[in-house]
Structures are given as C-alpha cells and as structure tokens.
C-alpha cells in the first residue's frame, strides 16, 4: 500500500503570481477547487492508498501542492528550500509534520534551492532532477550525496513547465511519459540515454498537465484532456483515471503536484 501526503485546499487560491499559469485577476473558484481535490482524494483512496493530511495553513495557499514539501526516501525526509519567498513559509510546517510522524529530517544548506518531489523523480536506478526555474543544480549534488545515488540533472527551458513533474512522469515498467520540448537538448539526450522507453506527450496535451500524473502500480491518475496519452497508456496495460483539475492548473499544478509519496522509494 502506497502512503501519500495531501493537504486540503482550505486556504487555496491565486494570491500571487510566481509562474506563467497564475493570474490573480482570473483567480480560482474555491468551491470547484474543493470538489476537484476531493475527487482526487477519493480516487487515490479507491486505489488502496493510505492518505495522510497535513493541516493547511492560512496565507500559505500553495501548501496544497505537497509534492513540493520535500523528497522522502525510506524514513528520510529532505525538506524543500523554496526559491520564492511566497512559498518559503511552507517548509517548516511540512518538516515539523514529517518529524512528528517519525521521519528523519535532512536539511539542505540554506543557499541551495530545492523544491522536493516536484523536481526529483526516481526512474530506474537514477534520480532525475530538474533545475533552473525552481531548484538549483547545486542542490542535486547535495541530494545525491545524502542519498548515495546517481542523479541525472536536466535543465528545464520552458517556464510553463517549471518543475520536473510537470513534464516528466516515470512509470513502474521503466518507461516514462515526457514532454521533450520542456528540456534543453542535453537534458533530452540524458533522459534518452537513461530511460529505455519514452512516451512523448503532444504539446496540446502537455498544456493540460498530462505529465503531472500519480502512478500507483498499473493505475494512473491524471488530469483530463489528454486522450492520445490515455490511449497510449491503455495500450501499455495501464488504467487511467482522468480527473478535472482546472482550478489547480490555474496555479500551475495538477494531480502529482497535489501529492507526495511517503516515501517515493524505500531506498535509493
């Protein structure tokens, strides 16, 4: 049974603009957001996941995106160092909650930006880490040293896909779903060299945050709006659960951003 960390969207809203998706003028519908989040929660429960809820905090609207809380490997939790001051206040709440739940906290040096599972995803024996918009490449080295694993650092070049989990989604069979244009050519080559099979997502489907999917064995929970990807995944034997995510996409997040694995891997 996979354990997941979620955060209810009680204080969620577009209160600042730190990525190209966010528009305070447009805002998010709170009631619709609640409904969409509850549907995600229910879907994950149905998939036999154990869900932990971290209490939401006033004035920290993006705490709902728990993938950015940090990275959990075994019983070790590496908290994020958020690049934007708007989100920096989330880190102590997540760290305290994880510590209270028995996780060993391994802080990165303060001067290294790292945004957790949002920019760090295991595939095969390597931890793929995105850098430039949110995480620094220097943090990858530190994470690699802490975990003693191979880290493949890839540069993200499209500000709309500012976290790795918005454009890259590893699958348990060793393949991965990705949107290649979100990476520079070296990043693309590095991924191609280390991931045996890649499923390309079309630009119009990538815009629906299709890569931002939660993979629970053969079940994949992803935002609606990617029929071609769903068909490709079906052909590989996966069951897709398509959910409306419109209110979270307005903040630049979807299913995966709203979820953190506890742990992502038992060991590195």
């Amino acid at each position, binding site marked *: 049974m996979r354990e997941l960390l979620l955060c209810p969207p009680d204080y969620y809203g577009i209160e600042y603009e730190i990525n190209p998706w966010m528009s305070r003028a447009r805002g998010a519908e709170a009631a619709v957001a609640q409904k969409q989040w509850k549907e995600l929660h229910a879907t994950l429960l149905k998939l036999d996941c154990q869900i932990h809820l971290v209490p939401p905090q006033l004035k920290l609207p993006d705490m709902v995106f728990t993938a950015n809380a940090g990275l959990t490997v075994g019983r070790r939790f590496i908290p994020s160092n958020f690049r934007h001051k708007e989100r920096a206040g989330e880190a102590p709440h997540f760290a305290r909650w994880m510590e209270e739940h028995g996780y060993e906290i391994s802080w990165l040096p303060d001067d290294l930006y790292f945004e957790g599972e949002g920019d760090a995803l295991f595939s095969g*024996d390597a931890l793929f880490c995105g850098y430039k918009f949110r995480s*620094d490449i220097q943090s990858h*080295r530190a994470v690699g040293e802490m975990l003693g*694993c191979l*880290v*493949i650092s890839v*540069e993200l070049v499209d500000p709309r896909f500012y976290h790795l989990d918005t454009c890259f989604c590893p699958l348990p069979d060793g393949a991965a779903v990705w949107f290649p244009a979100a990476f520079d050519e070296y990043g693309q*080559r590095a991924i191609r060299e280390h991931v045996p099979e890649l499923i390309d997502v079309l630009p119009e489907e990538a815009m629906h945050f299709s890569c931002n999917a939660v993979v629970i064995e053969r079940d994949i929970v992803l935002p609606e709006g990617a029929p071609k990807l769903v068909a490709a995944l079906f052909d590989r034997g996966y069951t897709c659960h398509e959910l409306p995510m419109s209110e979270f996409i307005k903040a630049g997040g979807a299913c995966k951003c709203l979820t953190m694995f506890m742990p992502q891997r038992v060991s590195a």
Partner: protein
Amino acid sequence: MFSETIELRGHIIDSLILPKVLDQILTHGANFKIAEINIGKKRADQSFARIEVSAETSEALDELVLRLRQHGAEVAKPADAQLAKAPADGVFPSDFYVTTNQQTFVRFEGKDIEVRPAMMDSAIAVDRKKRTARAVKFFDVSKGDEIVVGHDGIRVVPVQRSTSGTDVFQFINTTIDADEPKSAIIRELGHELQRARATKAKIAIVAGPAIVRTGAGQHLVRLIESRYVDRLFAGNAFAVYDVERALFGTSLGVNPDLAFARGGHENHLRAINTIRETGGISAAVRKKVLNHGIMHACVRHNVDIVLTGTIRDEGPIPGVTTDAVEAQKVMREKLADVTHVLLLAALQHSLAVATMLAPTVKTVCVDIDPSAVNRAVEHQPLQSIGLVTDVEPFLRELAGCIAESDAKPGDRKET
C-alpha cells in the same frame, strides 16, 4: 585574454553537464583547458572537473561564468600569491618568482593584479597599499620590499596566435634562412610598417655598425626621412662609424665605395674627436659640422636616439650612456611604448633589447649569422620574423618597396 578557473562536481558525465558547459564556453567565443578531471568509478560516484576558461574581455568572461554557474559551475578560489620581504637592497628573498615577458597576474587579497610592465627575468614586487604589482630588477629592489615567492597565485597569459592570417608576423613567424627567397616577405614587412605608421604605432630600429660598413646607411636614411623610424637604439660604435662615414667617407678606415682609403683607422678617432669637440651629435648637426648620414637624419627628423656604451668603446661621444645599469633603465623606458622593432645586424644590442620587449611587440631580426637571428627571435615566438641575410640587401629592398608603394598607395594589395 582574461581567464577564470571553474569547477564542476556531481554526475556531470551522465547528466551531460560537462559537455554542455564546454560547448557553451566555445559557443560564446571563449576557450577552455581542462586542468583536472576525475571521473567517478561507480555509478553513484560523483565526478569532478577543473576547467580554465579564457575570454577576450573581462565582461565576456563574467557573463559566461554567470551562465555557467546556472549549470553548477563554481568559480575556483585560487590562493593568494605568497610574499616575502627583500632581505637587503638589491637582493630578492630566496625562492623569488622569476618572470617571463608574458602578461602576468598576481592574486592578492582575492583579486588579480596585472604585473606592469611585463618584463622577463625579473622578480615581482607587490605594493599592499596601492594594490599594484611591478616587475623589478635587482637594482630596483630595496630592503623590505614585498616580493612574490613560489608559484601560488601567479597566472601567466601567453600571447595567443591570431587565426586571422592577415598579419605577416603571425602567418610567417619563422626564420628565413640564407638560401631562401626573401623578397615577398620583405614586401609584406614593408606593408606592415606602412600600416603601423598609419596607426601611429611606434617603430624602433636597433642598428649595428654593419649597416654603415656595408653601405646600407643610405637606405636606412630613406626610411628615417619617410618617418618609418621613431626611435634608434645603437652603441657608441654605430654612431661613430656613421659620423666617420659622413665626415671622411670611411667607416673604421674602410671606404665602402672604394677599394682602399687614405687615413685608415685614424679617421675613426678624428670623428670621435669632432663630435666631442662640438658637444654631441645634435650640436654637430646644428653647427652644420655633420651634414649627412644616419645620425644626421635622426636629428633632422626628430628620431629619438638611444646610445649606450660597451667596454671596447673609443670615446665615447657625448650622449652615450656608459653605466650599464643606467643604460638598461633608459632602454626599458624607451622601449615601453614601442610596437615594432627591427633588430638589424647588432647581435649583442639585439639580444639586450629582445629580453626587454613585451610579448606583443612585433620583431624582425636581420643578421648574417643564423644563430644570432635564432637567439634574438626566440623571446617573441609568436610575433617575430628572422631573416638570415646581409643587412644591406635587406634594407635596400625594404626602403625600395616602401618608397614604391608610398608613391602609389592605391596599387597596394591589402594582405
């Protein structure tokens, strides 16, 4: 050239960060040298690379390094240079750093200071208060001066070979032996001197007595009259030979125009006496005692004459610096802004001058002795041409080419 050492750590091979960084250096028009690389042995092992990055300007380098930092490059912090106090006047501390004539920087309190002037076979004195570094000779150093010792914190930036191919010095850059054709090269040199004159560069001639004795003086006079010479370095003997030739038609008793001459050797001493009597070369010209010849042309065309003495000198004539240390100082000072030097049949003088030149000075050495040519040009490996030949045909052809193309500049093909 400006350079910085960067370090890359992590899984830089698997992530292709190393090739990305190297590619970025090249696409930004900069260069790199991998100083050290350590590749992780096991899959999880991180790798390390230390890379020297160099760019044309400090701004370009800063911008590039800033970009590379995004990909994890860290600027290596080199150690400061070690300093020790000079134990006495004229004595360097042991293990003092010996300079080359290349552009050199000293790391002091975390910053690079350029050593000025770039002077070979010197030590480096650092002034803490002014935060300056200068190359110093033995006679320049006083007890307590802080001198760089060891090799830490020293960065030498060699002159880069140009790839443009438009500069005769950079695409010939060799010694032309006695049995090789020289006309084409002499013509190119003529064009280079014309370009130099047009850009207000400073041309110096180091002249040996063979110029006078072979009858090449008249060709040098043509160059002086056409304003291709800004400064003339020579010994007492050269000046006296030229004066003797102007006054008596002989040089060291030999008339280049006749098979023999009356008066013989004594003309040499009479010439010295005449110049001593008039008070010097300029005075002799002013008083119309000296009415032609190279020294006369120099005075008439305001060429700076730098005369130094040797132990064998007769006289010497007034204006010759006979103190060897003082002569070195004067020569260094007068060579500081020179851009082009022609070392003409003056072995000892040429070697002395060659050791004082900045690495960017374009140097031509002409001598009939191949070893003299090789010794003189070895100090300027990327900016020199040596010609093994009698100086008279060289000067005749050079003056002829220049006169010809000065007369019809439109016809000259740009090379």
